[in-house]
């Protein structure tokens, strides 16, 4: 990527990057709209290049996730709408995204939305709490769920099924 080689501006670019960050804090994930793209940990870099382009590096969660293209378009539209163009949105494949990058705020929002947040990868397997009643008496129904990033579980205490964000 030739754009990586361009030096970043050293003087007073902060405000544009900071503004971009605050705009992205309100761009929702299309599949789980309680989470912003920042909560999800997929925005890896925001920088202003020497030629004035704002470069945003986004890491896909799953390689086949159909939301990836929508996310790029939503990010571009939001930043353009805030007058932050010209933009360049690039894929950041390495290092690969991990559910560990979901913010603490993101984990709280997931729980409130009824989705059990992922544990930390290094701490797996850990007890899974029902996001509805808080019981640890839960079981996995399926390794996979309604989107590539979720699995299906069930609470034996309150009898409700729930999604859990996969831990990868």
């Amino acid at each position, binding site marked *: 990527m030739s754009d990586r080689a361009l030096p970043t501006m050293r003087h007073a670019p902060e405000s544009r990057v900071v503004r971009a960050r605050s705009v992205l804090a309100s761009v929702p994930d299309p599949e789980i709209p309680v989470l912003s793209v920042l909560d999800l940990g997929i925005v890896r870099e925001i920088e202003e290049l020497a030629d004035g382009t704002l470069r945003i590096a986004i890491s*896909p969660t799953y*390689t086949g996730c159909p939301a990836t293209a929508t996310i790029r378009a939503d990010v571009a539209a939001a930043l353009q709408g805030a007058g932050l163009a010209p933009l360049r949105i690039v894929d950041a*494949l*390495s*290092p*690969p995204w*991990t559910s560990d990058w979901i913010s603490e705020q993101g984990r709280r929002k997931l729980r409130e939305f009824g989705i059990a947040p992922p544990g930390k990868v290094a701490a797996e397997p850990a007890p899974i709490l029902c996001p509805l009643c808080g019981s640890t008496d839960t079981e996995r129904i399926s390794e*996979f769920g309604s989107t*590539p990033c979720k699995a*299906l579980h069930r609470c034996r205490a309150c009898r409700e099924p729930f999604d859990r964000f996969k831990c990868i």
Partner: protein
Amino acid sequence: MNAAPTDAVRGAAPGPLFEYLLRIGDTGLVLAQRLGEWVGHAPAIEEDLGLANTALDLLGQARMLLSYAAEIEGRSRTEDDLAFLREESEYRNATLAEMPNGDFGDTIARQFLLDAYQVPLYERLAGSRDTRLAAIAAKALKESRYHLRYSSGWLVRLGDGTEESHARAQAALERLWPYTGELFDADETDRQALADGIAPDPAELHADWSARVDVVLTEATLARPPESRYRWYGKRGRHSEHFGHLLAELQFLQRSHPGARW
């Protein structure tokens, strides 16, 4: 990169990296197509979701690999041109991936044998000298490990399940086992990719695959089938009789409505 690809067939561009990307990319693409055939037909909604999600991951991986292959080729083809508009002999997938779905036991056995291959493959490709392939592999590895957990779990449940499920799982393994030889049988492309630091040594890969497979087969109370001397070579463009039918469905829309887009 200047060695002549002696096993390349009509239509392929020279170069071991291009050939190698097609091999692993096409294996994912074709397996995803097979798994997609289960949508709406799996034994339970959870397995419908499981097989479809696995297919989606494999398709995502294939897109990255085929996009890269198209760039390397430098003939202005795209990932879609490669996926939808090649002739049968130009696909380089492992023959195992194109085997028909059969019953759920056949599908799980095929999936397990290929997942147990992709995990050690991507572990090694993550250290490839080709940094783009290494990045794709590191990403794909996380997904493949998840797939292997799923297919191993099912193979154990079927093998160590009822008399009927055990018999069907054993029969599926025996039907599919002869197609695993191709995965590790090094030819000129494999040797050149190894020499260039692009890809791992197939013999080393075989030892790793074999050890992983044995652990799960033991837990599943299934017997490891004997090795077959016969070889299929989907990876050189010589496919089984099932492949044309698969392509007819995969390519129908793009052939009938050239350039159609969502």
